């Protein structure tokens, strides 16, 4: 337990997740938080009024507000200009990003960002020479240098929620880790996607730890640590994670993961085990955690802010050689004695078992030494099979998990633990006592394609048993589950993807058999022809391979995502590093064309509406001044008239505002579709071709060249 070394209290609310610290004059750290009414609070206790010789009194005089005028959605600070040794503030709103020099009261740059700014980080990325401000919006990621030049652009599958810079591949270059609403954590090396991890909920926070480790948190209250693509640990809480940060709190040279929770708790966890090492409680939810040398004494403090404006700073725990050794010894001792305890219990059980077997047959086996035990035959086995069911009018298509025992023992209950397919990650089946049997079916409704590990625990015994045996087993659901072989008269899908690979047909067949949950294994000699139906959307999927024609593979489906998934899976399996395809999605492109037209329309409407609103607000302002003037002059009649007029204009303005709001949301959703299409077009390719496609699409959209965009999506280049 450690006590804070300083506490501050601002009389301002602080928005969750929007805190940062910056050395705006190159020397003095300033705590910076977003607060209500589109304002940013900058606390600068060090460099105030050195010139004026005024003495600051209390915290309030050290706080000054910056007015952004729009709700702030992202806030960060960093040395954006490597020529100048100071930090710049980067503030994002729903429509723009502002990089601001706090010290000089001057903009660095201001840019409109149509996709909005959900999160921003500043730092060196990959091989780009200068530090950039990376901005994550709706499905897109942009990077700006200090002059506001657009140096980096790529797309992700969904709205970006969290970003972090971390040396993921251990090559002394920073990679960008992006967490998004579609439960994925993606790692970009420059604009190339290096790896992808799927989580169980929307990713809310990411933070770099030491080396290639990074911490993450999810919207369902999970927090954990990854090292590269392996997860070290994770824990789940019913509270929400607001902020995570890395800080070496116990002074052992390895950073801990500090987590701020929505119930006001702050805890530090070991990066390897997730063990809690320190805890503190705030009266209100945490808003942000950062570290800075805030007392200017050369030591970095951990600083936690709550949403009510309370700030506490902590120093690392005192650690001397004398105190560490006994604690380690004690820990080891405790661990060993726990092990001993477990082994003793296990031994006891074996002894009982032996006793039971020694008893004469026919005697009641349920009681030994006065304690009931549930004995079952030693050769009892648990059988688990997976099956696809097309469902009916009431039940959606699903996977059926058949679980049965090999003899007359019954299944009392089943606990399945799997990520992402159940609400709350686990599923318990506990039939009523009359219905217990040696068979149980569990329905699983996977929402999307993906590999899932099922950890099954079954309680096995006899009907009259009081104690049950637990059987544990793990089963993997293959990637593509809800597919069945299509009847012969299925119409052929209009869209297709064609590419060539130099691989034997058996390998492709093997991949299909491994990744699809099909009743019968597919076999093919010299030509592969698989016709499937996706049960989820009831759309056909045809896969065709002709080894005679240079290994030409044709995937016919109207679902661009599915085609992308298949290509990504297949190429990873076959170890293909670069693949260019010809994609033909006439329906989808038609849809995209209409979306692009709509985007244009919405853009021009919003321009018009903005001008109109500005005009109206000018009118309102003059009306207010006139009415107030009349009031001061005591001319009540005119004042009343003025305010009446004001009322009508105001009403107009409000209705206009709602129109504008609708327009904006529509625009955003359409832009999102465009970005997602680019992402999908990228997923149809692999390696360098993928990066090229995304960059070319971006260029086409920037120059408003729709026909070339379509060509790029089709052929991979313009």
């Amino acid at each position, binding site marked *: 337990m450690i006590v804070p070394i300083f506490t501050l209290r601002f009389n301002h609310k602080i928005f969750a997740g929007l805190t940062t610290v910056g050395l705006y004059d190159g020397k003095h750290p300033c705590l910076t938080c977003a607060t209500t009414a589109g304002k940013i609070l900058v606390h600068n206790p060090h460099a105030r009024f050195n010139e*004026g010789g005024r003495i600051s009194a209390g915290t309030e005089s050290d706080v000054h507000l910056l007015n952004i005028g729009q709700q702030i959605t992202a806030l960060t600070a960093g040395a954006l200009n490597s020529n100048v040794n100071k930090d710049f503030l980067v503030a994002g709103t729903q429509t723009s990003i502002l990089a601001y020099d706090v010290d000089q009261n001057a903009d660095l740059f201001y840019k409109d960002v149509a996709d909005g700014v959900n999160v921003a980080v500043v730092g060196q990325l990959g091989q780009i020479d200068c530090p950039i401000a990376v901005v994550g919006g709706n499905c897109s990621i942009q990077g700006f240098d200090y002059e506001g030049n657009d140096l980096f652009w790529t797309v992700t599958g969904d709205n970006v929620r969290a970003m972090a810079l971390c040396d993921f591949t251990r090559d002394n270059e920073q990679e960008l880790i992006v967490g998004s609403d579609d439960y994925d954590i993606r790692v970009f090396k420059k604009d190339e996607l290096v790896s992808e991890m799927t989580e169980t909920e929307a990713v809310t926070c990411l933070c770099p730890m030491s080396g290639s480790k990074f911490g993450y948190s999810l919207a369902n209250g999970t927090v954990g640590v990854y090292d590269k693509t392996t997860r070290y640990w994770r824990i789940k809480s019913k509270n929400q994670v607001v902020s995570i940060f890395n800080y070496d709190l116990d002074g052992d040279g390895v950073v801990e993961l500090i987590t701020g929770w929505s119930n006001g708790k702050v805890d530090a966890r070991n990066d390897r085990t997730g063990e809690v090492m320190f805890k503190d409680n705030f009266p209100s939810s945490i808003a942000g955690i950062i570290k800075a040398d805030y007392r200017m004494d050369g030591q970095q403090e951990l600083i936690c802010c709550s949403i009510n404006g309370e700030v506490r700073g902590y120093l690392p725990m005192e650690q001397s050689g004398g105190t560490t050794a006994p604690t380690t010894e004690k820990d080891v001792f405790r661990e060993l004695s726990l092990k001993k305890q477990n082994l003793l219990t296990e031994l006891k059980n074996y002894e009982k078992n032996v006793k039971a077997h020694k008893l004469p047959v026919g005697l009641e086996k349920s009681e030994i030494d006065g304690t009931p035990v549930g004995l079952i035959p030693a050769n009892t086995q648990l059988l688990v099979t997976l099956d696809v069911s097309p469902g009916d009018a009431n039940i959606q298509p699903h996977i059926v998990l058949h679980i049965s025992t090999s003899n007359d023992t019954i299944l009392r209950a089943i606990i399945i633990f799997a990520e992402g397919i159940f609400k709350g990650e686990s599923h318990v089946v506990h039939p009523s006592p009359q219905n217990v049997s040696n068979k149980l079916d569990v329905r699983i409704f996977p929402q999307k394609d993906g590999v899932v590990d099922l950890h099954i625990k079954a309680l096995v015994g006899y009907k009259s048993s009081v104690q049950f045996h637990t059987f544990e087993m793990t089963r993997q659901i293959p990637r593509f589950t809800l597919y069945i072989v299509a009847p012969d008269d299925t119409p052929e899908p209009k869209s297709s993807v064609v590419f060539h690979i130099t691989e034997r047909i058996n390998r492709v067949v093997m991949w299909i058999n491994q990744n699809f949950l099909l009743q019968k294994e597919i076999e093919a000699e010299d030509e592969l022809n698989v016709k499937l139906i996706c049960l989820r959307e009831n759309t056909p999927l045809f896969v065709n391979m002709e080894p005679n024609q240079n290994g030409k593979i044709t995937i016919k489906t109207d679902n661009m995502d599915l085609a992308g998934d298949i290509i990504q899976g297949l190429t990873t399996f076959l170890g293909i590093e670069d693949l260019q395809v010809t994609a033909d999605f006439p329906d989808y492109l038609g849809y995209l064309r209409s979306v692009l037209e709509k985007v244009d329309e919405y853009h021009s409407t919003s321009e018009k509406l903005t001008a109109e609103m500005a*005009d109206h607000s000018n009118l309102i302002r003059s009306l207010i*001044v*006139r009415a107030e003037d009349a009031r001061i002059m005591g001319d009540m009649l005119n004042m009343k008239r003025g305010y009446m007029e004001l009322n009508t204009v105001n009403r107009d303005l409000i209705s206009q505002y709602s129109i504008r709001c609708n327009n904006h949301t529509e625009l955003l959703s359409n832009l999102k579709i465009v970005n997602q299409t680019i992402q999908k077009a990228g997923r149809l390719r692999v390696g360098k071709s993928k990066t090229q496609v995304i960059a070319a699409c971006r260029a086409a959209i920037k120059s408003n060249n729709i026909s070339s965009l379509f060509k790029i999506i089709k052929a991979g280049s313009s």
Partner: protein
Amino acid sequence: MDPLFLANSYFRRRRFDDCVELCNKVLQKNPYEQAFWYLKARALTEQVYVDEVDYDEEGIAEMLMDDNAIAKVARPGTSFNKPTTSSGGPSPSVRPTTQSGRPLSGFLRPGTQGGRPGTMEQAIRTPRTAHTARPVTSASGRYVRLGTASMLSQPDGPFINVARLNLSKYASRPNLSKVLFEYLFHHENDIRSALELAALTTEACQFKDWWWKVQLGKCYYRLGLLREAEKQFKSALNMIDMVDTFLYLAKVYVRLDQPQKALEVFNKGIEVFPGESTLLTGIARIYEGINDLTSAVKYYKSVLHHDNTHVEAIACIATNHFYSDQPEIALRFFRRLLQMGVYNTQLFNNLGLCCFYAQQYDMTLNCFERALQLASDEEMDDVWYNLGHVALGIGDMTVAYQCFKLSLTSNNNHAESYNNLGVLELRKANNEQARAFFQSAASLGSHMYEPHYNFSVLAEKSGDLHSSYVSVNKALTSFTDHIESRNLLSQLKEHFAAL
């Protein structure tokens, strides 16, 4: 003579009324005569044309209700808002301040007069008492007047019915769109339609015409959409470097209260157009705004180096010399102004003061006489006030008293005169009278520290320590480093501690 030739000739000779009349005649016969339509629109625009660059009027509403500035309390020297916090400026005890708390400049220009008032009442009352006619908003005020005046002169209705214009048709005709835009912008003052036309036209020319981008920026600026304006100006500058565009962009930053960024823009402009006097003046004005007078004068001098008839630069340098105790040099600059044909009260008034402080007494009164002859009613008060100063300087209290009284007759709200009258009354030991003068001076000129300090001294002498304490604090808020006030304050604190 060919009517088109004649109309053109009228236009070039700036006889716009004749030109319009001639065009009207032709247009009555044939309303689709494009050349005449074009000429008439241009003539009407020229009549009311004001250069947008030098035109910046922040209305009461904008001043009070707009929050364009990012930093509320910026570091000294980085904001126009709180100029007195900057160090290095002249002391208010040497160089008097204007209402905004800024030292008196040599040149009156829009946007230099007002500080940000605290309340609506203060904001509305200030223009009534001070000699400023601040418009209600920048969208009303002079803009509207320009727009409506022209309508009256046309008995048969407006020349172009804006509501019925098909703007997209004009957008595709570059020969007409520009003149129509200028007409809408300057003459009709219908910024919204002008903006729409500009937006359509830029689209029609595929965003390749910098001129339209600048016009879009102008429209956005007028509508108060500063960020949009900034974007347009920047994009125009990317295509071609123009002095105007630099000036507009800097104006946007001034409005956003970012002097450093504005300076950056000007400096960039100067790299492209070295020695451009408008850009240099802009820099000097900004330095003046953030109270860095040394740099301001440096830039005014470089303006003069490139353009030796620049009135603003001469006047500002002269004022600076005058207040830095070099009236002889100031006199030379003022005389230069006189040579250049500036012939008004203010100049003679300043000349008179310079002569007085340079001990050329023979000229002093002559100059003031000339100033009084030229003065209109509004300017009379300042001349009499300055004459009062001269009288004080030669020790003639009676004349001084009368001068200040005369100043008050022409302007009943002249705070400085009240203050000085108070001092004179105090000398005569009419404490009650003096007190009343100080109080009215303080209430009229809230930006001045003198009446507060004087009142405080008076109250302290009469034993009213509390009022003294309140007033001295007020004096210190408008002039933080005033030594006498500080001494008085510490003295008062000692008194209170003793109690």
